[in-house]
């Protein structure tokens, strides 16, 4: 198996005719963890949703290749089957569909007919991943995200990550609304995935998650593009000094997409 690879070139994304991402380049390889940071309203979550194929976002220009294939030509489920995963900031609630049924359908969607995962194997895997994430076993029979607290939803996204074992995962503000204990649990889950066969894009505006998941590269997003990249020390400096020094350095007055 070759190491996963996603390459984004000159990406432009609009929502309802308004351009949010304005020429973004980024490349992630297996074994790497990238963090995209930035203040609110700079287009970070748009990047995450657009890559997965969210129906509200329109890609107006640019190219994304995933393991050499044109990602933007693929349907949402094909992107997932190719190995892309998005842990969502606001996961949907689906009434009447249990977490376990949903996950089994997701796993089996990747397998050929007649080669579905056996029930025993599935249950064993789910039990062990739920234990890793400190999730009560009742979660497997609860309806998908229905009535879950914010923190429970985040944990459930990470459970899906661990069950589906994608090649490239995008974590969209997986840390927002989490207390420190939950943050540690979620980080443990992500660190558990680390391998040369797994690449990760973490979207956050707090540095604190990066205390638990050390990134290889840190990118700062402003006005719908990446304006600065560096190593873990960049995140550290942002934590200590905020974003103003970058704005000064680059002559940016308003970092949001609105004013650019």
């Amino acid at each position: 198996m070759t190491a996963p690879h996603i390459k984004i070139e000159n990406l432009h994304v609009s929502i309802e005719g308004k351009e949010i991402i304005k020429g973004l380049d980024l490349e992630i390889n297996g074994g790497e963890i990238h963090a995209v940071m930035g203040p609110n309203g700079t287009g970070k979550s748009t990047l995450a949703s657009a890559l997965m194929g969210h129906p509200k976002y329109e890609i107006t220009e640019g190219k994304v290749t995933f393991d050499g294939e044109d990602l933007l030509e693929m349907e949402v489920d094909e992107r997932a089957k190719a190995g892309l995963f998005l842990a969502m900031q606001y996961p949907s609630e689906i009434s009447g569909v249990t977490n376990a049924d949903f996950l089994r359908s997701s796993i089996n969607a990747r397998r050929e007919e007649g080669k579905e995962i056996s029930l025993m194997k599935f249950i064993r895997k789910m039990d062990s991943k739920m234990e890793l994430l400190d999730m009560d076993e009742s979660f497997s029979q609860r309806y998908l995200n229905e009535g879950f607290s914010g923190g429970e939803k985040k944990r459930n996204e990470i459970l899906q990550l661990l069950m589906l074992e994608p090649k490239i995962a995008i974590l969209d503000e997986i840390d927002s609304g989490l207390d420190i204990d939950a943050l540690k649990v979620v980080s443990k889950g992500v660190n558990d995935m680390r391998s040369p066969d797994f690449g990760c894009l973490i979207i956050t505006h707090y540095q604190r998650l990066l205390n638990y998941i050390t990134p290889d590269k840190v990118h700062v997003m402003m006005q719908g593009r990446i304006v600065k990249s560096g190593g873990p020390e960049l995140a550290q400096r942002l934590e200590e000094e905020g974003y103003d020094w970058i704005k000064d350095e680059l002559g940016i007055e308003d970092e949001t997409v609105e004013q650019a």
Partner: protein
Amino acid sequence: MSVETNETKIAFDQSYVSDFSKQRNEPEWLTELRLRGLELAESLPMPKPEKTKIDNWNFTQFQHVVEASQVEKVDDLPEYILNLIGTEDRTDNFIVQRNSTPAFKQVSQELKDKGVIFTDIATAVQEHSDLVKKYFMNQAVKIDEHRLTALHAALLNGGVFVYVPKNVEVDVPLQSVFVQEDGEASLFNHVLVVAEDNSSVTYVENYLSHSDDQASVANIVAEVYAGPNARVQFGAVDNFAKGITTYVNRRGHVERDGKIEWALGQMNDGNTISDNTTNLVGDGSYADTKTVSVGRGEQKQNFVIRVNQWGKESDAQLLAHAVMKDSASSIFNGIAKIEHGATKANSEQTERVLMLSDKARGDANPILLIDEDDVTAGHAASVGRMDPIQMFYLMSRGISKQEAERLVIHGFLAPVVKELPIEGVKKMLVEVIEGKVTK
């Protein structure tokens, strides 16, 4: 004398009806009731379901009685019926009716010893005449409501009677399977469930037919009486093919601290009028109504789910979920009526319609009629399409669009599916839903 229902005349007169009653060895009160029904059917108007025109529906073309055979042993029943009653998990107590003929029945000795009656309606009126008379079209559904209730009494040809005496708790489900085997055979089916004080029972019924081409009529009345502190769980899966026009009226009467819980899977393919009303008469009485339906093809349906509350601190929970596809059209009227004096009563209702086609029509109308100040009531109604964000979420995990839709629909209809207490029936409903939404 003849009865004119629409433009066509039905060839049933007094002598036909009284002969029919005599052949069946019925008590006099029933013969009289039938004749009164016939007479009323001449003068009474048809029901007027709101927003649904039924002028052109077939209520007249059918064969009143088509004989079907009884079987000696349960295993002589056709396989599709055996599947419904299950094999390993089969209940000890069930009745199978083919057309209007009771074909097989089985009740455990244990229940008989407790005084529980579970038998076909023809036997019941002979063996328990007074008991049936006390409740039959007397407490819940009245013969003179409109032409179809009157005709129901006149032409009654099938059904079952369930009687649970005081303080008896029946902890295994009772099951009826009503099958229309011949496409032109009618069903004038009456189900009477009586649970006396402090008793409890679970009853589940299936209606089934196969002919899409031959026209016939099902005129079904179910009356459910829950006495003081009694509890009745009533499950049903209606699965008539396109040829049958259905009028189904399931009505509950609940005394003090009694409970009725309905779980109705309404999966007919033909035109259907369904009225499910529960009267919460006693203080502290409770009704829980859950109904799911799928509309497809050209079919037209009208559903009323209604709870009338007289009892203080009575509580009504109504839920209707429906999926609409093709050019089907359905009206859902959820009615909460709280009478003056029903203080501290509560009523909650939810109607949700999921539209899968531009040509389908689905109306959800929550109606609150409240004549008492000291009550709580709530309602929610929505008609909408498949949520694209939900679809995106499911598909982002690799699930295909088709499978994602299937999951959402199953989830949407799950509230009733999971309430059904018999595995075979539950499985059947899931299969019917599957068949209806994917084809």
